[in-house]
């Protein structure tokens, strides 16, 4: 086994070009668990934690978008500029593990692992984020919806590094909520991100841990936009909230597993989405 610790993106790209099957490690909060329990024994590892270029954030106020480096740890998203422009991401970051996990775990790690329970992923989906990938020779941008292709499977090609993700800065309320077995230090049993676009009068709802990848509730989104004018700040009648919740639950595709049951997860996303919609309009 070999471990490489590049200091620049160029060196990291060289290392993966020379050995496209090498395993990347970012904060290590997923991969090391698998290694500690002998579930994985990688032969060659490229550690990205020392590549400073992957930790930068650019805010583009002209195009109203923010680009977050794949190596930025969650603790840097909890407050400050990112929290100000993408509050749902700050809320999601805040629910990741513990301070120890948030100082190590990164948004690029979430994308690389591509678990449907990854806390940043519903936010990226609800905001129609893009994922920026790079090889030594080329770079490309992929929609988050095309990037996530299955349980722990993504569209990253051999030799590519996930360098950053770009999210739009949206005017309107946004939030993230999740259910786990306790308040701190949990992996999602079910999660939900809701984003209201006040300018365009649209809403986006994305669900985590209730399907093979993050689920966007597109039917519910367009249904709601027809019921009320989201450009204003309407009060949500009770029956509308109820129907919204059950429509969201109907679009989820949960399973029974070691963490919870499908029935509970369906119930959880109905409640979480209803709660977020209520918070958005109060």
């Amino acid at each position, binding site marked *: *086994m*070999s*471990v*490489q*610790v*590049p*200091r620049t993106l160029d*060196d990291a790209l060289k*290392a993966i070009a020379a050995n496209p099957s090498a395993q990347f*490690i970012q*904060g*290590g*909060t997923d*991969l*090391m*668990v698998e*290694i*500690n*329990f002998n579930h994985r*024994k*990688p032969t060659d*590892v490229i*550690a990205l*934690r*020392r590549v400073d270029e992957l930790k930068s954030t650019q805010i583009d106020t002209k195009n109203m978008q923010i680009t977050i480096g794949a190596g930025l*740890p969650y*603790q840097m998203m909890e407050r400050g500029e990112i929290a100000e422009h993408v509050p749902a991401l700050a809320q999601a970051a805040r629910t990741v*593990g*513990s*301070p*120890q*996990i948030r*100082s*190590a775990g990164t948004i690029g790690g979430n994308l690389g692992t591509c678990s449907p329970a990854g806390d940043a992923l519903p936010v990226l989906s609800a905001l129609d984020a893009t994922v920026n990938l790079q090889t030594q020779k080329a770079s490309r941008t992929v929609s988050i919806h095309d990037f996530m292709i299955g349980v722990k499977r993504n569209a990253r090609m051999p030799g590519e590094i996930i360098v950053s993700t770009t999210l739009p800065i949206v005017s309107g309320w946004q939030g993230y909520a999740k259910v786990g077995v306790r*308040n*701190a*230090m949990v992996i999602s049993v079910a999660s939900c991100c809701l984003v209201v676009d006040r300018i365009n009068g649209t809403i986006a709802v994305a669900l985590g841990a209730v399907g093979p990848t993050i689920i966007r509730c597109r039917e519910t989104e367009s249904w709601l936009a027809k019921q009320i004018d989201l450009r204003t700040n309407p009060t949500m009648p009770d029956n509308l909230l109820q129907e919204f919740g059950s429509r969201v639950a109907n679009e989820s595709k949960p399973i029974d597993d070691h963490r919870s049951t499908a029935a509970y997860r369906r119930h959880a996303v109905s409640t979480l989405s209803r709660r977020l919609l209520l918070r958005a309009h109060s």
Partner: protein
Amino acid sequence: MMNANTEIYSLTVNGKSHQVKDSWVGESLLYVLRERLGLPGSKGACEQGECGSCTVIMDGDAVCSCLVMAATAIDADIRTVEDLASDGVLTEVQQAFITEGGVQCGFCTPGLVVAIEHLLSKNPEPSEIEIKEAISGNICRCTGYGRIFEAVDKAITVRKVNRT
């Protein structure tokens, strides 16, 4: 670029450089600290980042050493619980754990002490919620946390007196 494929690399722990020899390079920092460098203060319990018993400070951040691949931590400044007491004199936090009865079986104690020292180094007078948040990644199954919070309060008071 550093290549740790020779199975010899060095780590800077508590200000001293240590050579790690004859190891498998996929080993966790926790394992290397305990089994290769003779620093058993950090405890191994869950080995999946849930319990915080293995908390160390790496480049100024509290991290679970079980989730750090040791060979990737070259050039990092690693501080373990062994770095706290100097010449046998306990820190205010360590002393408060004793006087307030914050220790029962003791397995979680090193991780908690490191997490609390880290909090107080950045925020000498944290609120109750900030304390709870700072140790939310450290699990204690004996004390019920009451006496741990008392120890933190005590340490805050004593630190304030000692440092003014």
